[in-house]
Every structure is written in structure tokens, then in C-alpha cells.
């Protein structure tokens, strides 16, 4: 954990082929119904195939959550890169995106044609309400893991108030509250690398 590694950037040579990477991510992209892609990724990459170990998975996941971009595609890029460099990253992201993209392309066309039928509208109304419940549950579960203490809760509230209450646009809130929160969690107690205190 602490020793500096010189061997550096090049991903470790591995017997995994690009075809296998594409096929694995395609399968995850086609079967991960109902959100929660992360759980499917863990099952597919750490569990069944042992392509990466659990510690690496958690580390890559925390990078994915910090960066802009969806967790699923960020994970695909990071894992693909670890396995086979840039071509691996491309194979992985194409695989995980393809099934959902084809499905939503078709669904979009169908909805465009039949979306105004009362039965469809009633059904989608129910779907939307359930989706809000799903999104809220996912956010709460994520928050339980990553929100630590009362001050973090204040940052959560500031972001919510900024977007929903003050109607500030998301980038301002992200940069403003983000900078504040990063500064709050700034490195402390080390002698070097810090200006005044």
C-alpha cells in the first residue's frame, strides 16, 4: 500500500483476450436489469472470472464514483485498461453499452408511436413512481457508505438546496460546494505540501 511502485503505467500482461473482455461486458450489459450494475460487475469480474481482486475492484469503484461519468462505464474503462490497455477499455465500454442502447433505441421508437395511449400512460405513470423509489433507495444506500458525520450531511444539504431551492445550475453547485467540501477534508497534520494553517 505504501511503497512506491516504479513499474508504473503499463497494465500487467494477462491471458485475457479482447474478445473475452467484450463478451463479458456485453453479458453484463445485457443482463443487469434494474440498475445496480455495480453488483453485476463485481459478480462477473471478481467472482466468476477472477480478472481483478476485490481490493482492486473497490479502489476502481471509488475512482469511478469520484469522476464524472456513469459508474458502469467508468468501471468498464478502468477495468478494460487494467486488463488489456486502451483496446481493452474500448472493448469493455462498447460491450456494456451496446445492449441497453439497442433496447432504448427500440423503446424510444415504440414510445414515440404509442406513448399517448391512455393504458401506456397509466402504466408509465406507475413505472415513474417506482423509479423514484428505486433512485431514492440507491442514493440512500450509497450515502450510508460515503457520508461520514454531520459536516458531510451539511454538504449534502447544501447541494440539494443549491439545485432545488435556489435553482442554481448543477456545475456551479458541483464546483462551489465541491471546493468547499474538498477544502474541509484537506490534508492535515503533514509537515510538507501544505501552505499556511
Amino acid at each position, binding site marked *: 500500500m505504501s511503497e512506491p511502485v516504479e513499474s508504473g503505467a503499463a497494465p500487467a500482461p494477462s491471458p485475457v483476450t479482447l474478445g473475452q473482455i467484450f463478451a463479458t461486458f456485453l453479458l453484463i450489459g445485457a443482463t443487469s436489469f*434494474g440498475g445496480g450494475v455495480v453488483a453485476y460487475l463485481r459478480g462477473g469480474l471478481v467472482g466468476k472470472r477472477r480478472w481483478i481482486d476485490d481490493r482492486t475492484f473497490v479502489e*476502481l469503484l471509488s475512482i469511478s464514483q469520484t469522476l464524472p461519468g456513469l459508474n458502469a462505464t467508468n468501471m468498464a474503462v478502468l477495468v478494460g485498461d487494467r486488463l488489456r490497455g486502451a483496446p481493452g477499455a474500448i472493448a469493455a465500454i462498447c460491450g456494456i453499452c451496446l445492449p441497453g442502447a439497442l433496447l432504448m433505441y427500440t423503446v424510444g421508437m415504440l414510445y414515440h408511436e404509442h406513448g399517448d395511449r391512455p393504458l401506456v400512460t397509466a402504466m408509465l405513470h406507475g413505472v415513474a413512481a417506482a423509479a423514484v423509489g428505486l433512485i431514492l433507495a440507491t442514493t440512500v444506500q450509497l450515502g450510508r457508505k460515503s457520508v461520514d458525520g454531520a459536516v458531510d450531511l451539511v454538504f449534502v444539504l447544501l447541494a440539494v438546496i443549491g439545485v432545488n431551492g435556489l435553482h442554481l445550475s448543477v456545475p456551479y453547485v458541483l464546483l462551489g460546494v465541491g471546493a468547499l467540501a474538498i477544502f474541509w477534508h484537506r*490534508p492535515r497534520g503533514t509537515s510538507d505540501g501544505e501552505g499556511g494553517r
Partner: protein
Amino acid sequence: MNQIGALIRVFAYLSLLTVGGGMAAFPELEILTVNVHHWLTFPQLIHLYSVGQMAPGPNMMMIVSIGEWVAGLGGALAVLIAFFLPTALFAFASGRVWRRLEKWPWRSSIQRGLAPVSIGLLLAGCLAIAKGALTGAVTVSIMVVVCAILLRSRINPALLVLGGALVGLVALR
């Protein structure tokens, strides 16, 4: 052509806001696609977004539907590339740099600082969609029941969303 340019600009911009998850970009998604460009109505956006939550894979694939509505297959492809390429390149570069920054003290500050902010942005997105999706006692009950079940069990969420569709079919006509 004009529309494809607009699609690319909008979705490349939106992709950079998805810190923590796609939901974080929802308030801006609503403003840009509904109010600014009039590509679809707010109820249509909510319907597509909710159906997209059930689809497998990355949970923002409903953007493909918007691209298709606006400019056909070309629009769908433009949206896909605009939305996923910038963040993919960013993730690729960061993934390589990140490992070298293991001893950089600000690395964990950034992670710990952005975590609560991204939760806040996800909640803000959730509220924005709830405003349109929760219209009465039935929809609020569906939402509460689904959320409560998911927090207590490991059932596949897609089944609950389908359940929501059935309740809607019976009670929301």
C-alpha cells in the same frame, strides 16, 4: 445537421455533470431538453427516464431515445458518442494518473469531499424527477413501498418497477 450539433453540445455538457451517477445531471437534462430545445415534454422525459432505469447496462441509455426522436439513427449515435466519449477519455486518463498519485495527500481529500456533494446532487436529481412523477396518493404510495422494500431486501429492482407498472395500469387510468 443543426439539431445534431445541438444534441452533441447538450449531451457532452450533461455527461460532465454526472458525478456520482446519471441522476445528478437530471435537473440540467430537464432544462436543456424540455425548456430550451423543446425536444420532448416533461412527462415524456420522466417516462423515458423511468423506463430507462429498468433497462440493463448503464442507466442513462434513455438519452439514445431522445437522440432518435430528434434526428433518427444519426441523432442516436451522436448522443451516444457525445455522452460517453468525454467521460470515458477522462476516466481512462485519470485511472492511469490516479495510481501515481497514491501518496498525494489531496487525493483522498478530493474523494472524501466529492462523496457527500455527489450524494446531494443525486438527491437533487431525485427531487426534480419526483416533482413530475409523484402526482397523488397512489404514486407516492408506490414510491414509498418500492423504496422501503429495496432498503430491506435484495429483490431485483426491475421486478418492483414492473409492479409499479401494474399498479399504474389498475389505479392510475
